[in-house]
């Protein structure tokens, strides 16, 4: 595999840091060099979260060059639009169909872009993009908190790393009482992607 630069973005509280941790551990277990860094802002919940994961034979900087990211994993649509410009040639974006309006939208001082506008922004840089009903599926599985593992299932479909490594790393990070539900979520994510034509 050539280098893969992944950006995971969303809203604080969606489990992005754990997801990028697991992704990094998977890459390491698969024999790659990996660096990851999170930008969390000041809020414990509700602020913008950006996690950068760089995978290659040798990684120098932990920061991705704008215009050179390979995969954008967006847990929320507005954040997908905000960050898609970092994507480069041959890139893909996975977008969870979740709308979380920032306060300024709720207060009426700004407007949340509609789906068309978001797609138009994505098209400027993402070569492929996949909208996933992740939030709905996670809720159906019984716990919204399985969303991050479901999104990892989607990412797994785009990386040439054995599914067994993924499942081992997930098992190591999650407590046994929630593991089964999350494994279902992981497989759901992979199914979503194969339904979208990725195998």
């Amino acid at each position, binding site marked *: 595999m050539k280098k893969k630069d992944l950006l995971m973005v969303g809203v604080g509280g969606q489990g992005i840091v754990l997801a990028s941790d697991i992704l990094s551990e998977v890459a390491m277990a698969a024999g790659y060099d990996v660096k990851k860094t999170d930008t969390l802002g000041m809020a414990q919940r509700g602020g913008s979260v950006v996690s950068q994961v760089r995978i290659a034979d040798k990684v*120098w900087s932990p920061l991705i060059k704008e215009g050179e990211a390979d995969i954008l994993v967006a847990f929320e649509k507005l954040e997908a639009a905000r960050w898609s410009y970092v994507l480069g040639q041959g890139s893909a974006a996975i977008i969870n169909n979740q709308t979380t309006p920032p306060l300024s939208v709720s207060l009426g001082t700004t407007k949340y872009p509609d789906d068309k506008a978001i797609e138009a922004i994505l098209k400027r840089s993402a070569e492929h993009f996949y909208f996933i009903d992740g939030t709905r599926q996670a809720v159906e599985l019984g716990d919204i908190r399985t969303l991050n593992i479901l999104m990892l299932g989607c990412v797994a479909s785009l990386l040439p790393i054995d599914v067994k490594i993924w499942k081992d790393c997930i098992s190591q990070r999650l407590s046994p009482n929630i593991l089964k539900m999350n494994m279902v979520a992981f497989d759901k994510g992979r199914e979503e992607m194969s339904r979208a034509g990725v195998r």
Partner: protein
Amino acid sequence: MKKLLSGNEAFALGAYHAGVMVAAAYPGTPSTEILESIAGFDEVYAEWSTNEKVAMELGMGAAYAGVRALVSLKQVGLNVASDPFLAASITGINGGLVVIVADDPGVFSTQNEQDTRHYAKLAKVPMLEPSDSQEAYDLMAIAFEISEQFDTPVLVRSSTRISHSKSVVETNANRPASLKTAGFKHDVEKYVMLPVHVRLRRPVVEERLVKLTAYADTYPGNQIIKGEKRLGVVSSGVAYQHAREAFPRASFLKLGMTYPLPQKLLREFARQVGRLIIIEELDPFLEENIRALGIKVIGKEFIPRIGELNPGIVVESGYRAGLLPEPSRRKVSPPQGLPARPPVLCGGCPHAGIFFVLNTIGQRSKLLDARGKSAEQGKLVITGDIGCYTLATYPPLRAMDTTACMGAGIGQALGMEKAGIEGKVVAVIGDSTFLHSGITGVVDAVYNKSGVTIIILDNGTTAMTGHQEHPGTGISAKGKKTQKVELEKLVKGVGVEDVKVVDAFDIKAIRAAVRSSLENPELSVIIVRGACSVRLKKRTGQRNVDIEKCDDCETCLRIGCPAVQKLDEQVYIDATLCAGDACTICEQLCPKKAIGPVTATGGSK
């Protein structure tokens, strides 16, 4: 064994393997996880100190007693601890004393963007800088050795991208089976800094610096990496990683020790290469010190001195300096006009109610424009402090007028009052911050007969840095039950007579307390108490808006609660963010009684 560790985890493990016995810190992004990690080791005494000054003094004491001690803090934390830090430089130590300080280039979570490297020069102590987690791990053992060999505290400088990046670490060392036990040998000329003893120590410090300068040339972390001779790059810390990526063919002098500088090595490197560029974040610290050696370099005329660097910025700078070909211009610019997502108070935050009440007093909502400025004199001035509650500066709450540094709000309120501004001044401060450095302000207020109102927001934790314990929680850094400092007893004890404690989720009680305090010309303290909602184990009774009853008055939106949202002209509550029964502030404020538990009013949107 290979592990994926953050810089902070690597520092902690490295210090543990180096035999550290005592560790102290006050939480501060991005340094917090160093102490959190080290607290997990049974053999190490680890504590959250009341503030960084105490942490540093504790580290000094432990080092004087002959054991290895670690103090970890963020850059502004070192400002607080600078007095004992500089004192430790002049006395020297006995057991190793290593101080890790984490800078925040780019200002992700700090009130300034200082370059802490200047402290090494000020204190005349050696400074080491890792460029990834492996180095963070490896250099801890060396830092303790240097500290003991040269009888000096050692500064280890980290930054957000070192502390909060994870990379692969080979952890090959083990903690020594037996370590030196504590013992103190009397030596008043070394440890009692009377002027007469200081005069004895001054030459020792200067001689130490000369020895350290010679040592720097042999320090294993200072290395020349041979590449093309045309261009030489000198760099350190995470900037080195960006530079390696931006200049894959250049020769490098990578500095692991950035004070004092390896003078011979620098001159040798300068001779080997054509042009020499210094790539460093923030101030031209290396650049000025290298230039002072008479070496011709370029640097800050091309590299930004504000904000954090990244490979893209370094490539751009290299192009402007004529060292790299024009970078391929990416075709896509960041999208314009999207709503920003600034940090917010969480759903169910115990700070929301009090700030909602403060916002409605003194016509703040009318006086302040979109940028938070007012043409007229303010009717209610609210001096603020450092913590989650600083986020109440943003709309819609807009209930904070100043934020400078930990504990400053109380002193500022006193200053405004003594200067004679009209009306009552209110100082707002969190529980952990109050214990950190608010209490001295209260003592001042009592002593100097102030009539300000001090509001302590007691959420029972140090929330913004990720929920660390503090003296007011009654739990230690190791998670053990301990003696609790009770805020109301403390403020009454120093002489405040009007002390009220109110429930953070009872709007009526908050309003009554604030009104009563503002009417009282004497000094008053209100403790607004309510648990941080992020720590709720179970959430029940999430609220819901009854569309039939709602008349769209938007009162609930003015709380600034992220769970209360409005899209397509409809207000609704996001059940995944709502704290439910633990909060109910929106329900208390709704004039139409349109908000209630989900079960009572039907399904949620």
